[in-house]
């Protein structure tokens, strides 16, 4: 496996949202606009890369029986670090993402990658895997955010190009499920063939 494919796998083949179907809660809740989706994706990327690195470093020393609690503690530590840093330097991002920052702890993507990849691979590979999956997650969230923002508010990244209010349902809960459902259909149709 080449180092490059470790990163690109996260985009299509192992796309966390459309193929692995992990981390659905933040995917649905924070994608009300393209910017929010992007911010959430980057926050998850941060935790994913750091926890992958640390877990691949410590996993040989951790007894099998307690490996899950240890991983959770490591992940929770990085999440809290992120929470404090955001509060201090990017308070507006902290306010938009709110509850979903601490909930990165229970995002199955992070623990899933620790279990499936980081604990049996080298530090370098685990970091690359974290970057790949994290970028794939960020990409999916941003795409969902873009679609919902266009339909719901008539704008992209806050830049308004359709006058009027848009279809409000797409900003609210039903739109989240619907956009994700239809994007998954498109993904199944076109991307999975290769």
């Amino acid at each position: 496996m080449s180092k490059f494919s470790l990163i690109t796998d996260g985009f299509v083949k192992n796309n966390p949202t459309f193929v692995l179907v992990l981390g659905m809660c933040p995917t649905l809740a924070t994608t009300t606009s393209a910017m929010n989706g992007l911010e959430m994706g980057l926050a998850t990327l941060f935790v994913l890369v750091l926890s992958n690195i640390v877990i691949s470093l410590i996993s040989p020393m951790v007894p099998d029986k307690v490996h899950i609690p240890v991983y959770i503690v490591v992940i929770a530590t990085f999440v809290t670090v992120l929470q404090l840093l955001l509060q201090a330097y990017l308070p507006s991002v902290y306010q938009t993402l709110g509850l979903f920052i601490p909930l990165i702890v229970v995002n199955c993507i992070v623990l899933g990658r620790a279990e499936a990849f980081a604990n049996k691979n080298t530090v370098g590979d685990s970091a690359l895997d974290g970057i790949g999956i994290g970028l794939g997650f960020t990409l999916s969230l941003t795409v969902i955010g873009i679609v919902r923002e266009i339909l719901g508010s008539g704008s992209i990244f806050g830049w308004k190009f359709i006058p009027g209010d848009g279809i409000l349902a797409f900003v609210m809960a039903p739109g989240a499920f619907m956009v994700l459902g239809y994007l998954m259909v498109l993904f199944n149709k076109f991307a999975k063939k290769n």
Partner: protein
Amino acid sequence: MEYIIIIVSAIFVNNILLAQFLGICPFLGVSNKLSTATGMSGAVCFVITLATVVTYLLNKYLLVPFELEYLQTIAFILVIAALVQMVEIVLKKISPSLYQALGIFLPLITTNCAVLGVAITVVTKEFTFGDASHMLNLGQAVVYAIATSIGYGLAMILFAGLREHLAMNDVPKSFKGLPIALITVSIMAMAFLGFSGIV
């Protein structure tokens, strides 16, 4: 009166699955069959209520007095993980039949974000009653936790019923499985939006 507001708003208006998007992974994962959906809802209800009480007390009497609020996330998730383990052990000893019914779902619950989500919401968010807002007291927190998990169960069981029928229908290939399920949830969420006027 306050309790009625909490109950109605937690079950219908701010349904944890359809409006707050918490606990979606198990929702999509185990809603294939009505029986597993019921089992999962029961287990979640049990753990959410217990976890909320413990984390509420932990926050109030340990973290806040010692100014350790920044340890909230890590402390809560450890409490939940330990609690799930404990419930598993106790159930195995006391009621093997209940353990059989809930057993396989329990380990999954640690990473169910609904549990951590409710625990954090209860200790950080101000709730609105009429024209004032304040933090929940212990009684209200328990009622909120129970009502939220009833809402979780309601949405889960309704959806599992729909999904059992869905499985028998002939849907286009790209829609099979999750996509059509998500579109169905979307329509359900739309129906639940209709409740938003009642509180």
